[in-house]
């Protein structure tokens, strides 16, 4: 417990607060290589291990570009949303970035280049980090923005909805300066939420959401793709080089859909928890879900790992440029999400 308190104290101490605008924690992690590689860290045994736990706030997403640092985002524990950063690879430590000036949960991170990061979350919040400076961007919505994806510097998508599923969801598009509601979406049932957007370029974007909803933007118009399901579709990711896209979600039990050679097929393992996150990088593909659910994509299909190191809920997963995988989560059924955890492999 003392160590846990010390870690928390160090975490808080790592933050630097600036009035109005905040710019801290973006430097490379320093001097913790030995800590990070201690007692069989990432890659030591091939299995998932706890990298960090006991955070006051739960984490929803982990992400990074190959030419920038990693970011982990999460709930607001009363000190602003949890935002952690580190360099790629097992070495180094996660540093907390002070976000007290931007209250509310942050759900997802994306960015078009090494110098620009977008964070989206509660109340239509979009925070942009550019040249190391965080600023809040006005948006035309109060919905929770659950996901974002940047095709390039002038095509950034953010999607969201009403947590109670009563009000309509929203799809936003930014040119890098202004956020507007995307036009021309097909009619969807009242209360539909949009959870994620992802694509391979400005003219190939998919938005997924409740009721098995998959919308495809080809640069000119939207079309709805039928996956033959009414399940909630939470996260979409793919690797164009591998010609693979994967959607995970589930209403009750977990669901997995793969798009290979332009065709969607269900690949859900039986009897697993609902899934929240998926990431594909080359021949590595991982999915995560509630109660420590960890899936590997293997030749035989998606396999549930037996040796999960946590019973907490996992929400996001990412494979960095060194091949190290990261999964984040917490107690997502507390208000706000608490007990943040980071796993690595």
């Amino acid at each position, binding site marked *: 417990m003392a160590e846990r308190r010390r870690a928390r104290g160090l975490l808080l101490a790592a933050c630097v607060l600036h009035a109005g605008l905040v710019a801290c924690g973006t430097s490379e992690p320093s001097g913790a290589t030995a800590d990070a590689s201690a007692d069989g860290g990432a890659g030591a045994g091939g299995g998932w*291990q*706890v990298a960090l736990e006991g955070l006051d706030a739960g984490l929803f997403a982990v992400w990074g570009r190959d030419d920038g640092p990693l970011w982990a985002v999460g709930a607001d524990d009363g000190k602003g949303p949890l935002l952690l950063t580190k360099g790629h690879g097992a070495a180094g430590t996660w540093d907390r970035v002070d976000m007290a000036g931007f209250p509310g949960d942050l759900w997802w991170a994306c960015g078009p280049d090494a110098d620009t990061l977008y964070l989206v979350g509660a109340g239509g919040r979009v925070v942009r980090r550019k040249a190391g400076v965080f600023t809040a961007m006005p948006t035309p919505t109060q919905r929770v923005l659950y996901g974002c994806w940047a095709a390039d510097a002038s095509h950034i998508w953010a999607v969201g909805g009403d947590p109670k599923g009563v009000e309509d969801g929203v799809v936003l598009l930014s040119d890098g300066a202004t956020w507007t509601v995307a036009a021309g979406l097909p009619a969807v049932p009242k209360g539909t939420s949009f959870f994620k957007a992802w694509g391979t370029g400005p003219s190939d974007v998919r938005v997924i959401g409740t009721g098995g909803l998959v919308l495809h933007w080809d640069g000119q118009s939207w079309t709805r793709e039928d996956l033959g399901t009414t399940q909630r579709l939470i996260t979409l990711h793919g690797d164009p080089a591998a010609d693979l896209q994967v959607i995970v979600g589930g*209403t009750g039990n977990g669901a997995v859909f793969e798009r290979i050679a332009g065709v969607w097929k269900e690949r859900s393992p039986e009897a697993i928890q609902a899934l929240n996150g998926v990431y594909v990088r080359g021949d590595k593909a991982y999915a995560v879900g509630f109660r420590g659910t960890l899936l590997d994509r293997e030749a035989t299909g998606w396999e549930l790992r037996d040796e999960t190191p946590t019973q907490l809920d996992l929400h996001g997963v990412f494979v960095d440029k060194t091949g190290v995988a990261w999964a984040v989560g917490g107690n997502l059924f507390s208000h706000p999400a608490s007990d943040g*955890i980071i796993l690595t492999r």
Partner: protein
Amino acid sequence: MIARTATGSRRLSRAGTTTTWRGLVALGCVALSLGLASCGAEGEGDASDTSSAVDDAGVSDGDQAGADSGGSADSASAADTAGPEPAFELGTNVTGKNTPPFYSALAEGGTVNVELGPQGLWMVVLAFKTRAMFTPPLFLSGDIVVTDHDTAGSLKLKKQKVFPGGDGFDYYYNFWLVVKKPDGSFPVGVAGKKAVVTFEVTDADNKVHKVVRNVSLTGGPKGG
């Protein structure tokens, strides 16, 4: 900077208890309550009700003798030395909590609340406590059918484990059974309705234990 956690803290995580110091505090509370009802737990969670539940479900005590109770070293040790009666009790827990004080038994004719989970789905939260019955891992199957209402839910989970509660029982918490209409829409109008909850545990030895509860529902989404 944040140092990596120590091996010991990871062990806590594997044990399924809360992974924070708050979890340790809660566990300490439970430990201090041994011999008493529990730290705030409801009275239905006592051994007689549990035994009754086992009998109702037709499980032979003899079948369970010496069974490993879910991989818990503490419980297995207790079973070996004291030979506790095999026991199973279906219950519920405060959403997101995973310590015995937040567990309560679900009795026949009891009430189950349909609540909106943070994932945006309406659900009932089931749990159970057990002792000396199952060989892990467990396959769990839960179903709810609302009477005279086109609303139901089903959830099946493989490779599940139970975790020691520190009171001689192993627990499983937060079985989130989503309740919905056939088209996936919200279960409007379930408050006050009767429902049948069926919960089945199949262990690694293919031993099956099934419990059925007729319950009344509260909560659920409002509206037409």
